[in-house]
């Protein structure tokens, strides 16, 4: 750690773990990226919290492919379970509780199968990213009720897409180096967000959505 800012050195000397420091400094960049994707590109995802937390869940799994596998399993099992539970007409919270249980057991099965196939990397994924992914089910159901199945699946994959990009940004060595050297760079995201917050132009996705009106007749 040669080129490190003096405040960062001070924090490290006082016992703040390096990982914590890096993640806290990267967080503003991740959430700004999510805001940019929403306002300018038009990729919605599940708000800002979910893609951000999934990004960190991906960072916490040893390899990104295992994180993606777990995410996709949660969505697939969640959709099937909701379909099966539809007939039972249960109240909302008990229904979500059942779904979380079913999804949890499926993930357990997945880890077990991974272990027997000698995919030890999958079996040894730590528990917190797994729990985060499992609770994604509630968000997924809320959107299913609100906007229907198709929209929920699309939003899930948009969330995954943004999280994967977030993962690559957050694990980019050059960026980490820069941010440890100039930690205040993180605050540059505030003016960027003020600009995004006042932006009234068309989103990229809207150029596609309104293509029939835009194209010259």
């Amino acid at each position, binding site marked *: 750690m040669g080129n490190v800012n003096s405040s960062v050195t001070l924090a490290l000397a006082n016992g703040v773990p390096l990982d914590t420091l890096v993640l806290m400094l990267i967080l503003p960049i991740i959430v700004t990226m999510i805001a940019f994707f929403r306002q300018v590109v038009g990729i919605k995802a599940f708000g800002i919290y979910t893609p951000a937390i999934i990004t960190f869940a991906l960072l916490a799994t040893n390899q990104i492919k295992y994180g993606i596998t777990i995410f996709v399993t949660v969505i697939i099992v969640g959709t099937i379970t909701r379909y099966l539970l539809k007939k039972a007409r249960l109240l*909302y919270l008990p229904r979500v509780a059942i779904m979380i249980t079913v999804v949890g057991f499926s993930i357990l099965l997945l880890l077990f199968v991974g272990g027997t196939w000698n995919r030890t990397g999958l079996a040894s994924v730590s528990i917190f990213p797994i729990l985060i992914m499992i609770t994604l089910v509630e968000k997924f159901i809320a959107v299913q*009720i*609100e906007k*229907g199945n198709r*929209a929920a699946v699309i939003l899930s994959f948009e969330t995954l897409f943004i999280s994967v990009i977030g993962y690559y940004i957050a694990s980019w060595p050059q960026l980490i180096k820069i941010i440890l050297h100039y930690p205040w760079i993180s605050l540059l995201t505030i003016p960027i967000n003020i600009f995004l917050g006042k932006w009234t132009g*068309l989103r990229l996705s809207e150029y596609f959505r*309104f293509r029939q009106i835009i194209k010259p007749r």
Partner: protein
Amino acid sequence: MTSFFKARRNILGMNARNLRFIRPNNLRRARLLADDKLLSKKFLEKAELPVPNLLAKISDFEELENFNWDSLPESWVLKPNRGFGGEGILIVYGKKKNVGNTWIKADGSLVTAEDLKTHIRNIIDGSFSLAGVPDVAFFEERLKILKLFKPYAYKGVPDIRIIVYNKVPVIAMLRLPTRESDGKANLQQGAIGVGIDMATGVTTTAVFGKGKMIEYIPGTRLLLSGIKIPHWKDILLMAVRAQEVSRLGFLGADIAIDRDKGTVFLELNARPGLSIQIANMDGLLGRLRRVEDLKIKTAEKGVSVGMNLFGGEIEEEIEDISGKKIIGTVEKVKLIGKDGKEIEVEAKIDTGAYSTSIDANLAASLGFGETLEKFSQIDFSTSEVTPEKELETKKKILEGYKDEIPDLTDVAVIFSASGSSIRPVVNLEFILDEKKILSKTNIVERSDLKYPMIIGRRDLKKFLIEVK
């Protein structure tokens, strides 16, 4: 390329909708009103806007247990008060006979009071409300579909969405429920949105679901353009009134037409969707800019501004260039009789005929009975009806009988595939698409034909004919 930028600048995107229109114009209080269906209903009723009647409401589990199911009529709609996107709505069309409290849904399946209890418990628990907050369930009367709309809609009742800004109705569409949308009139769920010309209330272009342009109802030959919405001006006026009472500066008004009650205000919407632009093939931002700075005092003024600014463009453009009116192949015509009596009939526009002719019975009702009667007594056996002798024959008859027969202005000799005939000609005034025409009309027996009148080339000089 310039048209690309022009079109782009006129489109309202999500960012601009939220920041420039919803945020400053739809204040929190007004948004809360729009999200509360029962409160909206009360508000609209106070402003004397017709709404579907409220039958009953259930706010908690105790009320649900004590609810008297016999108090419900044969058909009704059950809704969550703070529902959105049509979720949680249950519609029944009739009550099953001889079985206690069982109703029939559109697809024929049955709903018992027990099923309803579970559904209502879910509503009260907030399963269908934003953020899952506890909710109220209510029953309201089921609207009946207008005959005009019946072939176009699947199961549900179509409604008309109008966006009102600064007291001006700026854009509108007819929303038709489809099989894909499961009878719901929501574009996001797969309904059809049909753009409406603001001046005339006639439908123009249509979008199916999120972005597919269509001309016909899928799987049929039912044309979606050219449907004339009844009570158009009233509907626009209702939308503007609703803006005044709700104080939603940027309002999406949903209005339906009931078979018996007429126009009915369905719902206030504080965050109207943007697909209405695709249905109309026109950008909303351009329209909003044009009404932004206007000072509109009354609802009536707002309606006429909207009708003038955003309508009649397609037809008017052609009419302006050519100076001619556009008519169809069959048109309503107002005939003016001898004593000023007016009769409206459907006439066939026939460019294959030179002159206009009307049915003998119709002519009699217009006061030409005597003319006809006397003309029929003439013996034509001596006249030669051949193209060579036409002029001579005409002259002979006209000179011989002009003074005897009232209103006889000419005699027509018609040669047609079905035989030749000699007909009396009278001066007849009629109004076609607001233009008054003085026509030399011949009279003939048309009672076995579909239209009592055909209008020929001679009287069509002021028109262009559109063949659909």
